[in-house]
């Protein structure tokens, strides 16, 4: 609640792993590319002597593990994270017997809720390189020897003491993924090296002097694959899948075994990489283990006016909530407090006199609890770094052993990412071996476009719950007062820990992400820390491996080559009162790729066509003049991936229909969604120029097909549905975008338009290659077409009732608008579309404009909010200027870096730049500073308004809306502050006619108005009554929200709709009460 929430819209940093990882992130859609760089660190694990797990509390500890015997029992668990380390070889295991060897670790949970750490031995890193024709088995040996020597020389320090770098070189026959080059296999050398990091070195050395290794112009294949992904692909393990260790194939570690346990997991075992069973997540194995999800929140006692710093400001409370995946309520609820705290019903309170003890005990609790997933709000960038740095500062030695490996400390790493859209963003990442940090903020920023990402705003948006917010300047006061005020603080803290769990549950994040991990085959953590590419790579590698292809190592070089994007049919703008049928291509891009067999493996280079004797009939030439072989010659991999994804989606959807159990339904729904997103990201992958394997021939062909198909649909529909062919009217295509076409059939009823829509969709589908399918989905009735990608309509899928109001590209969620704009827009659209009352909409807009000019709009509607990211913007910005101004007034409550600054634009002398006119809404209310209504008219309202009304009113929209009679009356507000205010003296005016009264009278009315006293009194009383009612409803609402009647409301949640209203009503009511009193006390 108090803390700085730093948001990043760009994906957070990837997990830092092997050194040659050059994966770049990729946006979901091809059109908005972002490229970002990151400063890379050599991954350095920090070791120490970690403390033992303690078992102090029945509720905290996991259930004791059953006694297990590898000779009799199988061990089955769901893995949640996979990593690797360099360790000692284990006798009896495959692979090199010379230390160091890479060992994989899989962490997971059994169905009974026991934690498992499984060391997987014997998997060696490798890559492929092309060899000359005369390369023989004996050349392999030379290559091995030479490479071994070269790498050893190259290793400057060799601190790992590697004795043998190159383990094996052998020849394999395979095909390159790139281009159709006939069916002949090519020979590759498969080079296995001792450690993953040696792959990059080997590649570099070979590239530098290929001949010394007996190679000519070598190309590398699969040399840039993450080692963990490599392992998962080769063992068919997908993310969050179930692993079974068969009887006799595994070894249990215990205190007495030869190899001692090194993790904090209850069950620690060893297994050979080829001896376990990886279950595919289908049928029985689609279940989910009871993961422990911990959500926590910390409170710090900051100093006035400074953002808390771990070197100075103590952590005073940590609240934790733990839920088991699938349970409705958290089963552990506790709060660790510094100093005493009154008991809290339903939660455990643990109080400590010293902060060091608090931190130490909390980290003991954390280890004892052994959570699998850690969540919270902005924990990655605030709570974790703060805790770890604070513990370091206080020298709480064992605090940072937070991962599942006993002796590895959790360390904060910075990563900077640069994106075209967002600019520079800093993020932190922390290692928790075996646990998945799942910061809800990062999830929301990735998956949802919201006006604001504060926990308040988010919980209101998704849960319709307002959250009480306490200004950070009073946290220290609450902490220092008494055990009761600390209890109050603890309540906030607990609520902040609970909300992320509620949101996770509501949005089903964990289930959806888990299903995504299963479908795409990557670990859960990758989904949060990395982009779309790794998912496609993982799927592509799996398919390529099955089909005998190798993936070339692409050198990412940004190219500026552009190709034409998706087409839009020029919109015929206007307000359509008749039904508009919409025909959509189902999964357009995937189905194009499938229909035309577009793939890396089917692409024919122009020079190759003749060489490999391809006839005209064997190839397809795409509208972008690229050539692909037909599926009769060779079936492409991408179409195959897409087919299996879409088939799986179909199956999931069918299962969803039959499933009754709500939890299983949510799993299936998450699954079908994950499959859909994955299918769409394949196209993006081929178009990502900085990606792993871009192929512009594919992506430009796809869009070119898309364009021709839209055009084709348009001409077919317009050709067939004409009066000449016996239809009521000539059909007109009024708009078409990427994958949909809007048709006006000219019919008046929904039933008819739906019927014609269905018919047209089937008719056009016939003419396309399978599986491309044009579907009739919905009718817009009425429909307001403003421009390309800007439209609104009432969305019908069945004739009796509309499903929703659909708005695209219209000001509703933009953050730099004030709420008035989006509220007004949605009401106008509602009037236009639902009530079909254009005049009503115009009148409403006029009313709002007139209300605005007459100061009848609630100030909360006019507040614009911006985040204060740094103080030294080159260009002057309103919120920065205001923050500086507020600092001069009161440094204690002024916004700090990272705070969101709300402001309104106020009147100032002519030609004052807008950034100087920003003012704190509270200050405005208290001092009745006049608001600059014309700013709101011109800069906020006018453009969006004209946009939606121009199609209806045409040219005269502007004069009608913005210059009409309703704009003539304006309210004048006299400021209590400002240059002139000091020199003016307020004189009482007659309430009736506003004449200035003689300075010595105390009467309410002048002599001329006296005869109307009753009337004037009654109308003033009416104003008073309205304010009184509002006042009491607002404050009682806040009491209910804060959950206490006897304590004062302290909330300063500025995102809440009623925050300013509450303040404003209080001030106005006071003033009105005084006005009424001027008539004299009623009792006389």
């Amino acid at each position, binding site marked *: 609640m108090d803390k700085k929430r730093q948001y990043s819209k760009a994906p957070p940093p990837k997990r830092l792993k092997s050194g040659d990882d050059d994966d770049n992130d990729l946006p979901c859609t091809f059109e908005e590319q972002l490229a970002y760089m990151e400063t890379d660190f050599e991954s350095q694990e920090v070791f120490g002597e970690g403390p033992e797990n303690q078992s102090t509390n029945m509720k905290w500890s996991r259930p004791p593990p059953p006694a297990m015997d590898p000779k009799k029992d199988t061990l089955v668990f769901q893995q949640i994270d996979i990593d690797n380390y360099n360790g000692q070889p284990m006798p009896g295991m495959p692979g090199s017997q010379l230390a160091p060897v890479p060992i994989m670790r899989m962490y997971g949970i059994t169905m009974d809720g026991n934690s498992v750490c499984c060391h997987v031995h014997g998997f060696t890193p490798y890559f492929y390189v092309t060899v000359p024709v005369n390369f023989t088995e004996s050349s392999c040996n030379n290559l091995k020897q030479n490479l071994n020597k070269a790498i050893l020389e190259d290793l400057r320090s060799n601190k790992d003491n590697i004795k043998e770098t190159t383990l094996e070189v052998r020849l394999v026959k395979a095909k390159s993924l790139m281009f159709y080059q006939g069916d002949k296999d090519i020979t590759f050398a498969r080079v296995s090296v001792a450690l993953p990091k040696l792959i990059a070195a080997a590649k570099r050395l070979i590239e530098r002097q290929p001949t010394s290794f007996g190679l000519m112009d070598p190309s590398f294949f699969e040399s840039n694959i993450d080692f963990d992904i490599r392992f998962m692909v080769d063992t068919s393990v997908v993310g969050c899948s179930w692993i079974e260790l068969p009887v006799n194939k595994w070894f249990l570690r215990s205190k007495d075994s030869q190899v001692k346990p090194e993790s904090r997991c209850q069950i620690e075992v060893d297994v050979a990489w080829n001896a376990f069973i990886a279950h595919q997540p289908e049928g029985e194995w689609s279940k989910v283990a009871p993961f422990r999800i911990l959500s926590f929140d910390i409170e710090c006692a900051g100093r006035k006016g400074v953002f808390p710093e771990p070197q100075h400001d103590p952590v005073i409370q940590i609240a934790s909530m733990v839920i088991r995946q699938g349970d409705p309520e958290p089963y552990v609820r506790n709060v660790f407090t510094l100093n005493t705290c*009154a*008991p*809290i*019903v*339903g*939660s455990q309170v643990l109080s400590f006199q010293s902060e060091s003890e608090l931190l130490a005990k909390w980290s003991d609790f954390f280890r004892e609890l052994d959570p699998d997933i850690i969540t919270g709000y902005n924990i990655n960038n605030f709570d974790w770094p703060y805790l770890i740095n604070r513990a370091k500062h206080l020298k709480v030695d064992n605090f940072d052993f937070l991962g599942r490996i006993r002796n590895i400390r959790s360390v904060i790493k910075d990563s900077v990412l640069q994106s075209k859209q967002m600019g520079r963003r800093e993020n932190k990442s922390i290692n928790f071996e075996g646990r998945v940090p799942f910061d809800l903020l990062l999830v929301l920023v990735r998956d949802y476009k919201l006006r604001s990402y504060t926990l308040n705003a988010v919980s209101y948006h998704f849960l*319709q719950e*307002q959250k009480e917010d306490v200004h950070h300047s009073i946290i220290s006061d609450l902490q220092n007062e008494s*055990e*009761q005020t600390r*209890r109050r603080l603890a309540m906030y803290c607990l609520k902040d820990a609970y909300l992320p769990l509620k949101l996770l549950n509501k949005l089903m994040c964990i289930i959806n992400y888990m299903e995504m991990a299963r479908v795409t085959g990557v670990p859960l953590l990758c989904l949060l820390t990395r982009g779309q590419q790794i998912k496609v790579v993982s799927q592509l590698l799996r398919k390529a491996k099955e089909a005998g292809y190798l993936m070339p190592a692409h050198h990412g070089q940004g190219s500026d080559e552009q190709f034409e994007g998706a087409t839009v049919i020029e919109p015929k703008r206007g307000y359509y009162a008749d039904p508009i049928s919409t025909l959509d291509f189902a999964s357009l891009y995937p189905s194009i790729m499938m229909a035309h067999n577009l793939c890396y493996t089917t692409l024919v280079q122009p020079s190759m066509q003749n060489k490999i004797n391809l006839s005209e009939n064997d190839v397809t030439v795409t509208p972008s003049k690229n050539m692909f072989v037909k599926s009769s010659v060779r079936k492409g991999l991408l179409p195959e991936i897409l087919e299996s994804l879409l088939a799986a989606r179909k199956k999931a959807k069918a299962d969803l229909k039959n499933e009754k159990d709500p939890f299983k339904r949510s799993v299936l729904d998450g699954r079908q969604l994950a499959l859909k997103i994955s299918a769409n990201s394949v196209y993006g992958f081929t178009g990502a120029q900085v990606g792993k394997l871009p192929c512009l021939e594919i992506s430009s062909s796809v869009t070119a097909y898309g364009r021709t198909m839209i055009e084709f649909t348009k001409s077919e529909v317009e050709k067939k549905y004409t009066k000449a062919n016996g239809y009521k009217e000539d059909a007109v295509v009024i708009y078409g975008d990427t994958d949909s076409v809007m048709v006006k059939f000219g019919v008046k009823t929904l039933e008819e338009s739906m019927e014609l829509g269905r018919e047209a969709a089937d008719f056009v589908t016939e003419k396309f290659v399978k599986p491309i399918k044009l579907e009739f989905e919905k009718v817009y009735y009425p429909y307001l077409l403003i421009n390309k990608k800007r439209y609104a309509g009432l969305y019908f899928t069945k004739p009796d009732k509309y499903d929703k*109001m659909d708005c695209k590209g219209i000001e509703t969620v933009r953050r730099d608008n004030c709420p008035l704009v989006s*509220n007004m827009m*949605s*009401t106008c659209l*509602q009037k236009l579309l*639902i009530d079909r009352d254009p005049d009503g909409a115009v009148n409403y807009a006029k009313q709002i404009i007139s209300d605005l000019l007459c100061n009848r709009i609630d100030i909360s509607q006019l507040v614009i909010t911006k985040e204060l990211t740094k103080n030294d913007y080159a260009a002057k910005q309103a919120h920065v200027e205001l923050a500086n101004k507020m600092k001069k007034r009161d440094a204690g409550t002024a916004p700090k870096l990272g705070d969101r600054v709300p402001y309104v634009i106020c009147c100032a002398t002519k030609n004052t730049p807008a950034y100087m006119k920003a003012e704190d809404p509270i200050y405005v209310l208290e001092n009745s500073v006049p608001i600059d209504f014309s700013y709101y008219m011109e800069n906020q309202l006018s453009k969006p308004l004209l946009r939606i009304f121009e199609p209806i009113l045409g040219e005269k929209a502007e004069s009608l809306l913005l210059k009409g009679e309703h704009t003539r009356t304006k309210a004048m507000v006299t400021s209590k502050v400002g240059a002139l205010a000091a020199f003016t003296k307020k004189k009482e005016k007659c309430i009736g006619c506003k004449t200035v009264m003689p300075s010595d009278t105390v009467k309410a009315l002048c002599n001329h108005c006296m005869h109307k*006293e*009753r*009337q004037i*009194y*009654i*109308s003033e*009383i*009416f104003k*008073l*009554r309205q304010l*009184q*009612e*509002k*006042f*009491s*409803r*607002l*404050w*009682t*609402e806040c*009491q*209910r*929200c804060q*959950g*206490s*009647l*006897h*304590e*004062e*409301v302290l909330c300063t949640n500025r995102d*809440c*709709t*009623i925050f300013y209203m509450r303040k404003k009503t*209080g001030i106005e*009511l*006071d003033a009105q*009460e005084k006005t009424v009193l001027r*008539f*004299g006390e*009623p*009792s*006389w």
Partner: protein
Amino acid sequence: MLFKAESSKAENTFQACELERQEVDYTDCSKRFQEVARDFSKQYAHIYSARLNTYRNILTPIVRKKWSDRHKILKLCELRDKGTTCVIIGTLFKFQELKPSILKELSDQLEIIPQAPRTHFVHDSDSLVLEDELQRIKLVGECIDVHSVVTGVVCALLGSEDEDGIFTVQDVCWAGCGIQKPLPKLSSDKYVVLISGLNTSKTAEHMFSLHLLMEWLSGLSGTSEYQEEVSKIVRVIVAGGVLASQTNEGTENESDFIAAVELMDSLAATLSAVAPLDLMPSSKDPTGIMLPQKPFHYCLFPKAIEYKSFNRVTNPYECDIGGFTCLGTSGEPIKDIMRYSKLDNTLEVMKKTLLWRNIAPTCPDTIPCTPCTDTDPFIIYNCPAIYFCGNCPEFATDLYEGENGQRTRLVCVPNFCDSMTVALINLANLECYSMKFS
């Protein structure tokens, strides 16, 4: 005896006779309603604190008497031993899903589908908590029915807290209606007339009845016998609904009131000329909407204020008429309790409020209320002899007898504009009748 239809001495002698209007001592005891702080920078927490503090003092001896000293009275923050039976004192708060929320209404303005307005907000999921100065605790137990209590009532509960932090209630102790001043013995009949809902802004239909009422009160109708009885009316109290009745749909606009207030001025003047008149406002009348409501402003009644017997009073209103404490409201608190509970009988609700010793427990939660700071004006200090509730749909009356011999005449004063009925109470025996004018 008044209004016996077949008066035994029904001689038709229409001769003029002078009758002296009887007088009794009268004291306005509404100071606490009049003098509340009206500082709108304050919040509602204060009124709850004041209420709880007062009740703690009231309840402690009652609890001692009821449950002896065996069980400790604890604050919620002192509840440390689970399972131990103890007594807790606090304010009830009822979670009600259907309780109207301004926050929801504001966000619904932007939604497409408007909700149908409700008049009753009870739902099966309603649940209770008890709150003291610092904490809340969830309540369960047979002996406290969530549907027959409301938010804002203070009580003492006997029970214990379980492992999950829920308090199981074994017994409840209410504050009770307090002690009553001994009722004076009267030698002759003295009547108080209670009227409500004159509703002069909507007079067309009941104008005739209104005139009958006026004539009757002024002694211009009936026989001399009859007139003599009328002369025993010592006071007329108008319990709200003066210009507009609560039952009126929608809100009245200002212009309706201008004419209505003139009519009311004349009526009040006429009435005050014949008997002392107390005029209480109610929620739709032109004075503030927050309880306690201030009296009407004098400028509204230029004619009537010429009479000393014209008394503009607060709502709620308490006075002493010849030693009988008379307390009542214009009906809002009682109606509000019915909206938020399954209690549906006005008399029963009135008894409850006596039992709870608070005439408006749901104020400020669901009734607009002045943010008082030091006191809760709604607490009943002395058990009244007459307790009335204005703006009721129909006349009803009952005699409430308290544990300590308190006797209270409960009166539901019906809306005159709908029922053409007024209530009369004979102070001599606390009997109550209705009288219809049509």
